[in-house]
């Protein structure tokens, strides 16, 4: 399960059949659907960043309404659950999720912002990765309670 969560955080494809069987064993099936939503949210932000990077000359959208937002792409109800879950997280976890999933921050940068910089770059990045994995798990659990 943790490996799947790490993959979501890193934009790596997830083998959901393996995750689902692991979830049944762990008794964590209840929030698995929310992990899917989180993956969709992460995918949206990765794609947005990618498009912004590859097409800087794209014509400006006429209005905010025309812009594909996370609500439009993953669905309003799912996006609302994601945002509500975020609000229920501890501050550190919220920072970790937003920085990694939405802003695509490197683990090195995230480690510094979370205050692990004194450990050195490599250890700070490892610590940040663990925080993100833990935070995403908590987010999925919070979302399942919304």
């Amino acid at each position, binding site marked *: 399960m943790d490996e799947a969560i790490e993959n979501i955080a890193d934009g790596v494809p997830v083998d959901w059949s393996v995750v689902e069987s692991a979830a049944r064993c762990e008794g964590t099936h209840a929030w698995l659907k929310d992990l899917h939503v989180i993956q969709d949210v992460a995918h949206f932000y990765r794609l947005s960043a990618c498009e912004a990077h590859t097409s800087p000359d794209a014509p400006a959208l006429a209005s905010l309404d025309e812009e594909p*937002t*996370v609500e439009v792409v993953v669905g309003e109800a799912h996006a609302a659950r994601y945002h509500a879950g975020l609000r229920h997280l501890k*501050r550190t976890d919220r920072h970790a999720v937003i920085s990694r999933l*939405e802003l695509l921050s490197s683990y090195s940068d995230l480690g510094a*912002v979370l*205050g692990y*910089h004194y450990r050195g770059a490599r250890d700070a990045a490892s610590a940040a990765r663990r925080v993100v994995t833990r935070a995403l798990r908590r987010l999925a659990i919070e979302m399942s309670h919304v």
Partner: protein
Amino acid sequence: MGLASDLRQKTTQLSVPAATEGKVSFDGDRDRGRDMTPDYGSLGSSSVEPPLDPETTVELLQLAKAGDGEALERLLERCLPPLQRWAHGRLPAHARGMLETVDVVQDAVMSAMRHLGTFEPRHQGALQAYLRRAVLNRIRDVIRKTKRRPHQTGLPEDLKDEATSPLDVLIGEENAALYDEALEQLGEEEQEAIIGRLEMGYSYQDLAIVLGKPSADAARMAVTRAVKHLAKVMRGE
């Protein structure tokens, strides 16, 4: 009805549900058992929070200053929930026992709003920054006052450090101070971008309005750049 006399009524109306229903519950078991996370359900931050109206804060502010009660109400509806979220993480547990975050924010906003006549916003996020500063000053006052008072008896056994705020508990007092110091070294817009998304929970659409950006994606990029800069500052680069 004048602006100052209208404020008490408006802020009271807006905070009544918080005090009676889900409320911002900073007391007792819920806090200890659940990372002191407030229930924002009645603060306009429920699972489906309406986006900011494109009507600008500056326009609302001008109307409110001219005595438009509805504009004032919309302004408060817009400003109070994110301020509550932001303030909750910065008020130490012992201070919350005396004065709930809702009251702290309400007092600070009311006080700040009385001086709106002389406040001239230079950009969309100026009012939010102005109010946040007012709330921070109020929080500091509360902390100073509570430190002068004798400690209450009957504190929960699991309360290890009563001078520690939830923020301090979460990332450590030292790291919280470093984070705040680093944040203050950033430019005004970068501070607004980070605080807006990470602390106050604005969507990127809302943040675009607050920061005066043309799109949600532009707002997200502004936050990305700001966080990168923050990381550099925190690493001492």
